[in-house]
């Protein structure tokens, strides 16, 4: 089976590099083809990389608190750029202050993210979900999903 391509990066002016390096190593190890854009990545840079590489998913990280500003409108931008159906994951410390994870999930779901993860996400579980989501997306158009 061909490896699913995923685009990875830390959004906005965020320079938290450690987790990003670990995610790259982890998802590569789990058999994904990882395009890692590193830290301080704009929405358009994520989308450019996804288009260039035919990626199935974009994995956005945000650790520094500006996620609410940086991540807003990402799905709309994907639609404008012609990749509206791409899988969008987001994870990290996504808001300022300590909030109920359910509220954070609702907020980011309304921005168009498919799955939302906190800072303590179990990476193995994330990789399993991602593999399923990518496989479901790979089903040719016309077949029921």
């Amino acid at each position, binding site marked *: 089976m061909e490896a699913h391509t995923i685009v990875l990066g830390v959004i*906005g*002016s*965020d*320079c938290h*590099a*450690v987790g*990003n*390096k*670990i995610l790259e*190593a982890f998802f590569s190890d789990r058999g994904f083809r990882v395009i890692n854009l*590193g*830290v*301080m990545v704009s929405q358009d840079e994520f989308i450019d990389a996804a288009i260039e590489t035919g990626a199935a998913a974009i994995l956005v990280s945000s*650790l*520094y*608190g*500006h996620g*609410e*500003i940086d991540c807003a409108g990402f799905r709309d931008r994907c639609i404008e750029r012609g990749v509206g159906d791409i899988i969008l994951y987001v994870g990290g*410390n996504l*808001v*300022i*202050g*300590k909030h109920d994870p359910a509220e954070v999930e609702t907020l980011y779901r309304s921005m168009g993210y498919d799955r939302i993860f906190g*800072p*303590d996400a179990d990476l193995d579980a994330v990789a399993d979900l991602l593999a399923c989501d990518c496989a479901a997306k790979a089903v040719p158009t016309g077949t029921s999903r």
Partner: protein
Amino acid sequence: MTFHDAPLSRHDFTAQQSDVRASWPTGADVDFAESIRFHQGRDASLNMASVLRQADARGAVLIQPRAGVALLSEHIRLLTFLQDHCDLLPTTIDAYTRQNRYEEAQKGVERSREAGHSLLNGFPAVNHGVAGCREVVESLSKPVQVRHGTPDARLLAEITLAAGFSSYEGGGVSYNIPYTKDVPLERSLRNWQYVDRLVGMYEDEGVRINREPFGPLSGTLVPPCISHTVGLIEGLLALQQGVRSITLGYGQAGSYVQDIAALQSLRDLGHEFFTNAGHTDYELTTVFHQWMGGFPESEARAFGVIAWGATAAALARATKVIVKTPHEAMGIPTMEANRQGLEATRQVINMLSDQPPLDTPEIQAEADRIKSEVRAIMTRVAELGSGSLVDGTVRAFEAGVIDVPFAPSKHNRGKLLPVRDLDGAVRIFEPGNVPFPAEVMEFHRARVADRARHENRPPCFQMVIDDIYAVSKGNLVGRPR
């Protein structure tokens, strides 16, 4: 070893200054003569350099939080609340300002006003301008420091120092390599020479501004010799530009032997390198950062980590401690959580203040090892620079002679790989091109091999990852699952 980097000439400084002040409208409000008068009219208890000097003389350990929000009134409210629970105040700058993205910071201010709470992770001081920053400083009864992560911090310095802040964190390496992706090191070093010269100009007028190189760097398993080398370089560069009050920093590794040895050796090396470079008229203090890596989710466990950091700082008599909060795992804390971190820290420091600092043969051996590592790296930096510390530093990073683990910058080699030993100290697994003395490298290899044998696995990247997550999962050393 001596270096011949010249102080920025008045001509070069002035040539830059008009561009710097013109880079955002609030820059026009800086009035140097007025700000000198303002600083001179302030009580010594509001000056960071003065308060640190006195604390150091009596062996006190001061505490300082991190804090900053988008709106002026909210920021003043936050610091006014915190000042009763700490000795020194911060103003943490938001991440857009750190990248000189003042328009985005402005949008963040407006959106925060609409949302009724801060959407920025710090205080956008440039946008608030001299008058706004002055209001902050005048509302408070403790010295206030600017804490950020800005590779080009010239305008931020012009505005905040003019407003009355009396300490400025950062440096051309420590606010580039861990904080950016692609800013050339020479550019950030030159921009920080401007900041240091500006501080030197305040000094020339009799106003002492404290400078603090950012010690923890990437905050992730950084060997003390690496962060010490960067701190010494930034200290020397600051002294060259006329700075006189320097606080060298170090981020907690978690091993008390290594942490106490690191703080001791940092102070010794500071005096050694500063005096050897011909500087005599300076004040040197130290800052210890509580654990900068990942924190446990559980607030109770987080207090354990905070208290352990307070313990190491008190046993090593750091001049001040930068305090974490029980919300660290979740990001930016509430003001109440911030207060709790300060109170937990204060409790430990008070209980240790009457007890003597800890010193053991193991600590001495560790301090000696750190010193020999730093001397070897600095010797190579001096050789590479042929008299220029800026050139030596740029070339040292190009060659991987200085190498910061887990830093985002492409101007950092990233070949050095650290890992903990069985006792929890940070050791060198892969030295990259860092010129460790042969016998010291032998020691590191032997310690890493001991752990590998004990865990029945070869030294590997997974071992390093296990170490990175260990504290958040309740341990120091990342044992195999």
